């Protein structure tokens, strides 16, 4: 206890407040957290051990049967595969286009502030708004994309983007890229601004050209940004729901071509657009969500371990 106060001590603080005073500050928040996150989570695990449909009182304890069934439930793998495709595509996009734009902005071009403000803008827009913006752009009747493709001589590409199974998933990737590019730019930009100028100058004096300076000196310094962006992209793309829901509906249209874990869980637990109660298997959906949480947590942990390890070596 450092006695820096010049004011004479009026009242010695009680031992209680010094030792345990802090615990009381945690309590109100903890109660909220307990009531809204922890108890429902425990409750959800309990439900996942039953065959409850979510409606009525008809339920029986089935143990881990839901989890067992999941292991051979092929729509689960199909949805997870679509998530993985979106993840890989967005990851590549962020670490190439996003990084390149950040490098361009780091050179402080004219109107840098303007570009930075604009390119980050979609991040603050809701995914619902993003979905509608692109529903409009891609609409075969009233959209801009098809006429623009025709105007630049790529008319053969124009089509019914969202109802064509071959392009629907690509559209989801494209729209997700539009919405999330700002993250890559801003994270890489702050990483680039932390690279010491002397390091670059030293390499230049040693005779490295600008490409060598970037790949051998600057890029290794960006590994914390690389880690953050990769983990963020992983969590974001495996949780994706809003964009798919708005662009292709809860069924992952067409013909489940864009079905992701988010829509599959939603449909299983709460019913799709059809709302025929026979399809609703709430307990099974909850088991799916919990399994997804565990797998995601494990992968996240692994990703962070691998990428952080690389950071230290670099």
């Amino acid at each position, binding site marked *: 206890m450092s006695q820096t106060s010049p004011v004479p001590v009026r009242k010695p603080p009680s031992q209680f407040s010094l030792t345990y005073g802090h615990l009381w500050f945690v309590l109100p928040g903890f109660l909220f957290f307990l009531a809204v996150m922890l108890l429902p989570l425990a409750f959800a695990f309990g439900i996942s051990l039953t065959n409850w449909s979510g409606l009525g009182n008809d339920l029986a304890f089935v143990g881990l049967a839901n989890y067992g069934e999941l292991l051979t439930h092929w729509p689960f793998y199909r949805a997870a595969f679509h998530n993985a495709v979106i993840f890989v595509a967005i990851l590549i996009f962020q670490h190439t286009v996003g990084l390149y734009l950040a490098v361009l902005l780091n050179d402080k071009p004219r109107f840098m502030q303007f570009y930075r403000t604009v390119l980050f803008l979609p991040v603050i827009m809701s995914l619902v708004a993003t979905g509608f913006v692109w529903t409009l752009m891609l609409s075969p009747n009233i959209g801009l994309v098809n006429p623009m493709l025709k105007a630049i001589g790529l008319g053969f590409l124009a089509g019914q983007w969202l109802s064509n199974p071959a392009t629907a998933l690509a559209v989801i990737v494209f729209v997700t890229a539009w919405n999330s590019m700002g993250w890559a730019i*801003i994270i890489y930009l702050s990483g680039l601004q932390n690279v010491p100028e002397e390091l670059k100058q030293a390499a230049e004096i040693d005779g490295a050209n600008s490409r060598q300076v970037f790949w051998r000196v600057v890029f290794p310094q960006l590994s914390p940004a690389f880690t953050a962006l990769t983990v963020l992209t992983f969590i974001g793309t495996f949780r994706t729901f809003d964009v798919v829901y708005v662009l292709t509906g809860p069924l992952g249209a067409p013909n489940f071509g864009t079905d992701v874990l988010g829509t599959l869980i939603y449909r299983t637990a709460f019913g799709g657009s059809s709302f025929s109660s026979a399809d609703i298997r709430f307990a099974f959906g909850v088991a799916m969500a919990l399994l997804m949480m565990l797998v*995601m947590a494990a992968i996240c942990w692994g990703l962070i371990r691998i990428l952080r390890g690389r950071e230290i070596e670099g």
Partner: protein
Amino acid sequence: MTNMTATPTAPLQRSQGSLGLLLGKTARTAVLVIASLWVLGPILFMVIASFKSVPEFFINPFGLPADWKVENYSRAWTDAQLSLTLPNTIIVTTVAVLISTILATMIAYGLSRKEKKWAMGLYTLFVAGLLVPVHAIILPLFIVLKAVGLFGTLLALIVPYIAMGLPLGVLVLTPIAAALPRDLINAARMDGATEWQIFWRIVMPLMKPGLISVAILNGVWMWNEFFIPLILAFKPEVQTMPVGIVSFIGAYSTEWGLVFSSVTVSTLPVVIAYLLMTRQFQSGLTAGAVKG
């Protein structure tokens, strides 16, 4: 880095012609302009579309509307129920952000002395909340909210938002709280300030930049959240804008002008706030992203 030193003639390589430099600069500007157009174009196109009448979408899909239908906005206000969902969104976001940020600051301050055994465990528990899937807890939550009589009120959204904002708040704020000057806090304690006074008059002001980051991070998320109100807010009286707009479209899918004016209204307040405080938004959102 070893093979770099083997090229002593490199300074010559770097002296490119001024034409090459100019071309490179032009190409880089072009990339930035194209990227900006890619972002702004669709948004502007949607804003223009929000002023069109239904027939004009088909007669003149790409040009400016011949007749600017400002009444799309007044109709969105009444028909698309923005008169209910816009105030709801403002109330829910404001109340939840305020309470969640204050609670997260209290937790962060409480946990900031990591030498305590329980502090590290609790910290991990709160932060692990980031991984809890909303899908799994939403129906148990629905049942609990119904049992305590909150279902069908705005509190059915506010209470979950407060709790779900805590993990990120704790994650961002605990390191900041741990770096607070202990001497200042101890001095105040010596002067007889209560723990609550210390928190309110010293800790909160010192942590203000972090608080703003957390408030922006959670505020943007709550304003835009779609899945939770999709399940927990079933009627317009308690819905927020994203889900209100989606359910409106289910009912009147041909009223494109109304749809886009609603989307524009739902986006505008965040965009204005962002343009007024661009720096705080960018650093605030990044703080959460990098730590998350």
